[in-house]
């Protein structure tokens, strides 16, 4: 909504700099998106008197005109219009002028004759529309001396326009009057609504207006007024000026006045050319199925019984009520008699019809927010007044299908003080509300019964009035304090603390955090080697590449890897913590926030470059497990594609997932969705393992399958770690336990076993630990060696063992005993051969 300052001042003596006023508007909740200062009006355009007109020697469509621009010197201009006579006063754009449309005026030759400026038409000055024939604007005789700026003759002055973003709850501020009312109240200036004379001319008929019974709900008020004696020329210059400042265009006197009234009062209205209507009558009724009307924009609109249709006395639809009039009875330059419709429509019905027809209009914008039902008579009077003294109106036919009802709302000052933190009295509240048009009646010391003005449909409840009190009191004047401290200070939940720890551990391990989109395409999933079963589709995606919700973090992370590699990044290690989505599978029972969606928080990590292989991913997993004190981290592996499914997921306890609102003790259960097997399929069949904790699987670790890497243009290996974070962090932790540290010397020795490739090194390690007993402090695999001499499918695993007792120095004999037990156990259990033994 664009509001010129000069127009606002019609209603109240508003003083202040444009900046101060903009600030005042902002603090009323009328967001100022721009303040435009027009600067000088029509600079360089002056009144000139026509001295003579002559034929152009070599052109028919232009003539030569000599004018006196005020200094008595004749100036020759070429002109394409022929409507002026000697002695007429006309606007001359002097050399150097820049026209309102940006056209610069220079001295130039036209067909061999000099033109020293330009005579201006009404549309070039934005006083009125383009006429059918080229015509110079001829000013009233004697209106000014030649040389006078034209702006002075038109009464146009520099202005300031406030461009306001009016919130949908303030229909009254979709008008200059409404904005002025708020601003005047804030500035303490007296507000005066327009008071046009109400003069009914004799002999002008009363229109016949009715609302069909079944349309009462759609059209609470319908008025019709016949107006004769429409002026032929144009609306007053100030109307054109203000329409242009407000962002509209002068068209013809009736349309201009119609728009002016709408902008000024916020009352949309529709003038029909009475001669093109089927009689002086209007009916508001529901549309009938299959009925059509051609609206002013030329489109054929198909109507329904949900729409309010305006029909003429013969029943033909002449407009879509409250949204747009029809072409059949459109106003034209030859219109001499008008039937003016000023009505009120049901906001919800207008919104539904407008949406269904895809039709936006100034009228719809206002009616769907709610137009003051009491405004119609004032709007009619103002309309007639603006048409000028020649216009003669008949009595207004006024049908109110919904009787007027005053809204009264109770307001307790004590409640206002509670909500606002103020200490206002009842009279204080009354004083603040009154300038906005509220009528407060004291009911005791604290309470007011407030009559709400008809233009404020947004004020129905006490709290709505409290907001009005606050607006006028000034949000800035509300004292500031901190709320009382809440009992018990929960801070971060254990889950949230651990999630931060996860991020810190990964960053500490050299990974950088990414945030990838939650959207993906089916092609992304297939490229990443993931299944597409169970993926959730977006109903209205921005485009097809974002048509699905990610069921895994892998596609986004791989896309990020590819993006960076295409930009010559070297080694990369990226991780992300984020939510993934799937349809629930048959196993996904249990409580979820939404029945139709399984949403889990996952952790994903990918790395490329030297050393970024499966072993690296395992190391990251180990670092995480240790940092979080997760019990019994294990890797279950050895499953090639033909060998079956990943290990069964064990029972897991319920624990705190990322959703808070579940009551304590009833956190989101771990839904065993299908994501593990999907992730499994994306990994290298010989280099992958299920990451397992004491109570079950939490994810996968390994290397990306070579063909998946190839499909992302990645040569070389990609380390991958994908974990269900809610399972990981919901897992019980190792107990805090301080193991005694021995003060005695250690005995170290190495053992190398040749075992089958199928025997996991970790199993050998566990056997060593079990056989060695309490005196084994630690052990480490320090070498893996493969050689033909060891036999096909065999490798050597070399372990370093450190023995130490808590209570004594170990002897050679102790060590020999341990060594013997270990060798025996490993040989028996794993078919191992002691190298060099």
């Amino acid at each position, binding site marked *: 909504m664009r509001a010129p300052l000069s127009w606002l001042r019609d209603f109240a003596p508003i003083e202040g700099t444009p900046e101060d006023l903009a600030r005042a508007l902002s603090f009323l909740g009328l967001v100022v998106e721009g303040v435009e200062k027009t600067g000088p009006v029509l600079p360089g355009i002056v009144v000139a008197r026509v001295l003579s007109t002559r034929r152009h020697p070599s052109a028919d469509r232009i003539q030569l005109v000599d004018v006196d621009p005020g200094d008595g010197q004749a100036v020759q201009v070429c002109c394409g219009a022929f409507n002026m006579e000697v002695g007429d006063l006309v606007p001359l754009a002097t050399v150097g002028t820049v026209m309102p449309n940006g056209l610069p005026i220079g001295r130039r030759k036209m067909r061999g004759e000099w033109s020293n400026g330009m005579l201006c038409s009404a549309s070039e000055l934005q006083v009125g529309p383009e006429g059918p024939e080229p015509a110079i604007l001829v000013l009233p005789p004697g209106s000014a001396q030649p040389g006078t700026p034209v702006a002075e003759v038109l009464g146009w002055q520099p202005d300031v326009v406030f461009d306001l973003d009016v919130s949908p709850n303030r229909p009254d501020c979709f008008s200059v009057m409404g904005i002025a009312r708020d601003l005047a109240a804030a500035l303490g200036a007296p507000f005066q609504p327009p008071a046009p004379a109400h003069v009914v001319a004799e002999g002008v008929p009363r229109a016949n207006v009715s609302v069909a019974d079944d349309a009462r709900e759609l059209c609470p008020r319908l008025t019709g007024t016949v107006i004769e004696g429409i002026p032929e020329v144009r609306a007053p210059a100030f109307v054109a000026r203000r329409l242009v400042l407000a962002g509209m265009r002068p068209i013809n006197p009736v349309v201009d006045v119609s728009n002016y009234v709408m902008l000024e009062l916020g009352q949309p209205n529709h003038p029909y050319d009475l001669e093109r209507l089927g009689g002086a009558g209007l009916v508001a009724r529901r549309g009938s199925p299959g009925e059509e009307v051609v609206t002013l924009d030329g489109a054929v609109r198909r109507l329904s019984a949900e729409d309010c249709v305006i029909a003429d006395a013969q029943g033909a639809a002449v407009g879509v009520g409250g949204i747009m009039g029809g072409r059949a009875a459109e106003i034209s330059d030859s219109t001499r008699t008008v039937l003016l419709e000023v009505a009120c429509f049901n906001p919800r019905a207008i919104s539904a019809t407008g949406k269904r027809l895809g039709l936006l209009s100034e009228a719809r914008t206002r009616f769907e927010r709610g137009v003051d039902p009491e405004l119609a008579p004032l709007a009619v009077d103002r309309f007639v007044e603006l048409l000028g003294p020649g216009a003669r109106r008949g009595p207004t036919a006024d049908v109110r299908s919904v009787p007027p009802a005053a809204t009264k709302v109770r307001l307790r000052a004590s409640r206002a003080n509670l909500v606002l933190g103020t200490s206002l009295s009842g009279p204080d509240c009354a004083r603040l509300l009154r300038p906005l048009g509220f009528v407060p009646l004291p009911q005791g010391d604290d309470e007011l019964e407030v009559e709400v003005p008809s233009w404020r449909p947004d004020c129905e409840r006490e709290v709505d009035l409290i907001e009005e009190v606050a607006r006028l009191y000034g949000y800035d004047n509300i004292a500031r304090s901190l709320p009382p401290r809440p009992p018990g200070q929960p801070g971060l939940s254990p889950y949230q603390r651990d999630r931060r720890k996860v991020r810190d551990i990964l960053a500490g391990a050299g990974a950088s955090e990414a945030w990838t989109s939650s959207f993906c395409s089916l092609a992304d999933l297939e490229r990443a080697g993931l299944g597409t079963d169970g993926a959730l589709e977006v109903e209205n995606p921005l485009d097809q590449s974002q048509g699905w919700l990610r069921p895994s973090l892998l596609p986004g992370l791989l896309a990020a890897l590819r993006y960076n590699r295409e930009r010559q990044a070297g080694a990369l290690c990226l991780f992300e913590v984020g939510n993934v989505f799937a349809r629930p599978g048959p196993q996904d029972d249990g409580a979820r926030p939404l029945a139709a969606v399984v949403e889990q928080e996952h952790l994903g990590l990918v790395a490329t470059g030297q050393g970024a292989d499966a072993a690296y991913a395992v190391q990251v997993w180990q670092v995480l497990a*240790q940092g979080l004190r997760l019990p019994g981290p294990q890797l279950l592996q050895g499953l090639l594609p033909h060998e079956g499914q990943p290990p069964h997921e064990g029972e897991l306890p319920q624990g705190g997932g990322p959703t808070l609102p579940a009551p304590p003790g009833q956190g989101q259960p771990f839904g065993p969705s299908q994501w593990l097997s999907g992730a499994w399929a994306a990994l290298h069949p010989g280099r992958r393992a299920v990451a397992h904790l004491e109570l079950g699987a939490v994810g996968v670790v390994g290397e990306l399958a070579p063909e998946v890497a190839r499909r992302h243009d990645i040569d070389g290996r990609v380390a991958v770690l994908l974990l269900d974070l809610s399972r990981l962090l919901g897992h019980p932790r190792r107990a805090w336990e301080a193991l005694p540290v021995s003060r005695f010397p250690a005995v170290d020795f190495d053992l190398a076993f040749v075992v089958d490739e199928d025997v996991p090194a970790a199993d050998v390690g566990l056997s060593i630990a079990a056989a060695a007993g309490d005196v084994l402090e630690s052990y480490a695999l320090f070498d893996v060696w493969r050689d033909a001499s060891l036999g096909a499918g065999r490798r050597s695993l070399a372990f370093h063992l450190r023995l130490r007792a808590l209570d004594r120095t170990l002897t050679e004999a102790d060590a020999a005993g341990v060594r013997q037990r270990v060798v025996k156990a490993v040989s028996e259990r794993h078919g191992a051969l002691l190298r060099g033994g």
Partner: protein
Amino acid sequence: MSELSSLEQVEEQGRARLLAASSLEALAVAATQAYGKRSQLAALTAQLRGLTPDERRSLGQEIQAVRARLEAVAAERKAQLEASQAQRQARSERLDLTEASSLASARSGPLAEPLSPPAPRGHLHLVTQVREELEDIFVSMGFEVAEGPEAEDDWHNFEALNMPPHHPARGMFDTFYLKAGQPESVLLRTHTSPVQIRLMESRRPPIYAVVPGRCYRRDTPDARHIPVFHQVEALVVDEGISMAHLAGTIEAFTKAFFGPGRHARLRPSFFPFTEPSAEFDVTCWVCGGAGCRTCSGSGWVELGGCGMVDPAVFAAVGVDAERYTGFAWGFGIDRLAAARTGLADLRELLYNDVRFLNQF
């Protein structure tokens, strides 16, 4: 007839060659021999020219059928060879992943080894860092950090927040809907406010919570909008909570985040879920309030929306609006992060370029 019998021979021979191929390279050679340009099949095709139109048509169709069958055999063989090649690669590259995690304490189990090669420290995402800083400020003020699902239903995202179906304010949010359940019943949350509803549904006041999280709006990406973004909001519900507390909390946060000497101000606004509603501005972080291009000379920059919880919202979740009052506010974390760092285009957040990520 001779052509037909030789056609059978050609097909048989070709099939045998294709099936005998033991590598992808050998298969390519066999395919050329079976139906390539110089193959017997091609030679037969060339002979068609000498035949009558009828003969040409029937024999031509036969040849085409043979070609199609041979191509199918080749494709099948290719898939077999690729699968076995992948399997061979899998076997030949097979690795015992437990070899990588070999250090163990005999009593407490596996020990993590230092990563090799040793890596320099990585980087937390800019948005994470800002989010954690915001969380910490509010945790220190006694708030909890609440979270909720990103896929939501209409009730939590709209209806319970005083936006019943067809409410005009729904137009303020361009919503992504999911193909799940009834049409337009499941959506991606357009703000973090549904967590307010989930909190109030799950327990009685007092509630002092701050809610960070990912949100979605169907905005075409530009410098100031990305369809996947992050918000943080707060909800306080207790006896005696007033707008003075709202303004005081925002002021305290502004000082804690932007530094001393920085202030916040409230301007009236409209949101369906708060009344009174306000937008809040903070002292321009570029000029410190003196006026510059970032703040259009005003010294203030709009940060977010806030207000007192609307009684209609309390009614939806069964909280007694006479006894309890509350406030809520929210703003975009990404925008705040962009503002702090001078990041001019939010779309940078979509790319995950390490040259961007590793600056923070």
